[in-house]
């Protein structure tokens, strides 16, 4: 399907450049989605939607003029192009000729989610609900949600780029509440990818099960310790620490404004040589993968840390142009209502050779942080904070009691330098990353990683 014919795109770009500009781009998108959940034993909130729209931008020097519109009607596109051009004062420029948009090599989707009846999705949620409630008599409440989306994207720009992508994502999430005496605890788990229904149907109940087991484990949790301790961080969602504490600081917009502790540090030894990390938007069917980014640049694997040395930032077209390099395919946006900015795709530490047990065995007294409830970082300083949603004490090299209420507080540079062990069990989990008011799917991941020392803010006095 073509959203905007190349001939129309050419006219729209010519209109956008009628008062000058170094670069103009038309981004068109058709989005559709469906979601449904079971909560309190009832299947509810089935909802679907369809949207089409476009974003137009003209870049002149360091200034960007843009507008967006709902719908893909010719006269609206031309009107927005004219209105965007009003910001400029120069001579008209001719955009390059455009061919038909080339469809990116995408990610395999075996069963298109809209082809599956909504009733089947509801049944799957019921089965997950049963599994969660059957885990133990202490399970008091369960909410399971399913969401699917399809985004068809076309990008045309004044340099002659014409590219398109067709992205299907599915995600299943479970939140289970367990109660015993006065204690109430919550466990969560998710499964998702740039993939079709086949990913979900493989073993949906396992998601409900893991969420239930987390909640049940927490019923026995003791208060978290406080102080500076060694921390072993779990694989999969544990990678949110890398995402927040390092990845955001490598996004070129923050770097160029010197709003990042990693500015000017390219080539520096920032970690032990055993540390290598990638941003990889190509990984087949992973949550943060796409065929092209939202500026039409093919996604790729970018090494960001190689044997402890910082080797690359993450670029979109604009910031790459400014640094005289190529875009790394990280120009991403939430929708046609937003401008692209440098964003991570799937960001993770490369696997090492140790086993998780090796890492834990080396700790006399510390914290095993399996999963986080979320986190936040100030890219300018690298200061971060993470809530540990599943954690355990490590005593004499063994994992012992579960803990609750632990928070990790630290600084990205310091934490990176303190990594002294990496396991082989790489796994990518599904996250939503927020930046500048835009939320995009981002894959976070890592193998088990050990950090020599980190501040643990606990609840134990």
């Amino acid at each position, binding site marked *: 399907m073509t959203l905007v014919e190349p001939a129309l795109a050419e006219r729209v770009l010519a209109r956008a450049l009628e008062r000058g500009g170094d670069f103009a781009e038309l981004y068109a998108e058709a989005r559709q989605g*469906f979601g*449904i959940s079971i909560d*309190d034993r*009832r*299947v509810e*909130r*089935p*909802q*679907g*939607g*369809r*949207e*089409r*729209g476009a974003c137009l931008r003209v870049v002149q020097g*360091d*200034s*960007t*003029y*843009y*507008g*967006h*519109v*709902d*719908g893909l009607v010719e006269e609206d596109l031309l009107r927005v192009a004219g209105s965007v051009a009003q*910001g400029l004062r120069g001579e008209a420029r001719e955009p390059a000729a455009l061919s038909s948009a080339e469809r990116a090599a995408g990610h395999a989707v075996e069963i298109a989610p809209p082809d599956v009846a*909504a009733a089947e999705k509801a049944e799957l949620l019921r089965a997950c609900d049963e599994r969660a409630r059957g885990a133990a008599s202490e399970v*008091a*409440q369960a909410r399971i949600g399913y969401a699917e989306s399809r985004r068809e994207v076309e990008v045309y720009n004044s340099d002659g780029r014409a590219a398109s992508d067709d992205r299907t994502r599915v995600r299943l999430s479970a939140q289970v*509440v367990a109660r015993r005496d006065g204690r*109430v*605890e919550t466990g969560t788990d998710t499964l998702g990818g740039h993939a079709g229904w086949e990913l979900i149907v493989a073993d949906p109940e396992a998601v409900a099960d893991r969420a239930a087991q987390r909640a049940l484990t927490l019923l026995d949790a003791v208060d978290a310790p406080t102080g*500076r301790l060694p921390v072993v961080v779990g694989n999969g969602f544990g990678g949110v620490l890398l995402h927040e504490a390092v990845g955001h600081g490598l996004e070129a917009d923050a770097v160029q*404004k*010197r*709003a990042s502790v990693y500015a000017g540090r390219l080539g520096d030894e920032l970690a032990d040589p055993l540390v290598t990390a990638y941003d990889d938007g190509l990984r087949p069917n992973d949550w943060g993968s796409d065929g092209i980014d939202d500026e039409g640049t093919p996604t790729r694997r970018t090494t960001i840390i190689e044997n402890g040395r910082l080797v690359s930032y993450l670029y979109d077209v604009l910031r790459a142009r400014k640094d005289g390099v190529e875009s790394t395919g990280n120009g991403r946006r939430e929708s046609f*209502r937003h401008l692209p900015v440098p964003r991570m795709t799937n960001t993770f530490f490369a696997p090492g050779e140790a086993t998780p047990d090796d890492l834990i065995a080396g700790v006399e007294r510390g914290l095993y942080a399996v999963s*986080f*409830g*979320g*986190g*936040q970082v100030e890219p*300018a*300083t*690298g*200061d*971060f*904070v*993470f*809530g540990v949603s599943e954690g355990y004490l490590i005593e004499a090299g063994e994992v012992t009691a579960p803990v609750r*209420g*632990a*928070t990790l*507080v*630290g*600084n990205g540079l310091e934490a990176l330098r303190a990594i002294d062990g990496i396991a082989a069990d790489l796994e990518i989990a599904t996250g939503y990353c927020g930046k500048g008011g835009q939320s995009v799917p981002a894959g976070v991941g890592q193998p088990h990683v050990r950090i020599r020392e980190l*501040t643990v*803010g*606990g*609840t134990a*006095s």
Partner: protein
Amino acid sequence: MSLEDVARRAVEATVDAGATDAEAWAEEGTSRRIRVYDGEVESLSDAGGRGVGVRAFVDGRSGYAYGTELSEEGLRETAGAAREAAEVADPDEYGGLPEEFGTTAVQGLASNTLVDWSTERKVDLALAVERAARKRRGVTQVENAVYSDAEGGIALVNSQGFSAGYEATQAWAYASAFAGEGSDLMTGLGVGLGRDPGALDPEAIGAEAADRALALVGARQPSSRRCPVVLDAFVAASFFGFIGSMLSADAVQRGRSLFAGREGDEIAAPALALADDATDPAGPSSSPFDGEGSATRRTPLIEHGRLLSFLFDARTARKAGRATTANASRGSYRAPPSVGTTNLTLQPGEAGLEQLFGEAGDGLYVTDVAGLHSGVNPVSGTFSVGASGRLIENGEAASPVRELTIASDLVGMLQAVQTLGSEARWVPFGGSVKAPPVLIAEMSISGS
């Protein structure tokens, strides 16, 4: 076609498709966003959009669909999708439209002067914010100075005869400034909001960003301790915004709120009074009707420390045998209504900030918290969140601190509220909350 016409046609199409009841929420708006950097425009946008969301009720089941195609055919497709979605939902004995509908007159939601502001004047305003922040000695960078505004209309129509609409405008500006260098770099945020750009004070916004960053320069990790804590208005607003979301009857009825079963209990110190108020003209989330057509109102939630009410929509009210408090909230036409706060207002006290410091004696002044939503257990209320600010020594602000966590539990914190400050302000992030600074008698601080 007016917005109410769009919504009416969507309702008709949904009933035609076989729904027993239907409701449509239509939206139309334009917005501008101007970001300046280093004295130049970094980006400038002018955007418009419209769309409609439809709820279809079929024999006690409900489904939702939305779309941006507002032609007859587009509306029919959206209506059909909502009707179809309803079939897979389980029946809900408490579901359905409210029994009563209405509107409350709220003056001043839309300013008629926004239209008089040219793009150039708005750019000048954003530049003035940036200049105000940059000119403070010690400010090393202003990462962002942003001016933004929006104007738009909302219409809500249902098959029980309700049809109403309103228009609203918003304008806001913010800046984030840095002070210090390298690993000692600290950031500060300044923000202002109103119904039109005339309500914004660029000097004050820029100065606030600069002052908040400068106050933290040289911050170090403090030692762990238990001490009195003063939350500034930003931080108090974040905490009370979170507490407000826990007062949702939906969270309560589904066993996800620590306040379940506590109605009528003394859950807070006697000095504390919290209300939800959708009728305050200055409140960013004010409106004449809620997301399902109930007339908006002011609902006292906590008074004299006692929990008076939860927040209800029609469904949760039926389940509890109560009346709705008109808290069916809509983020946009892209989602069905759900229970939420409108504007939360925490009643100010009489103490100035210096007085709060004096009362605290030796303690901590918190000017920023991070990770609130991941750091609080909503069911037990225990929390541990990252924070930065300044120590208070002998009743005065002393050295800046960072990389610390503050821990307590929400009810414990509410009961430890000792004194409320006098200077309340609107804080537009994490919901819409008007809060003063608050002195908490004791909290646990974890540092080195």
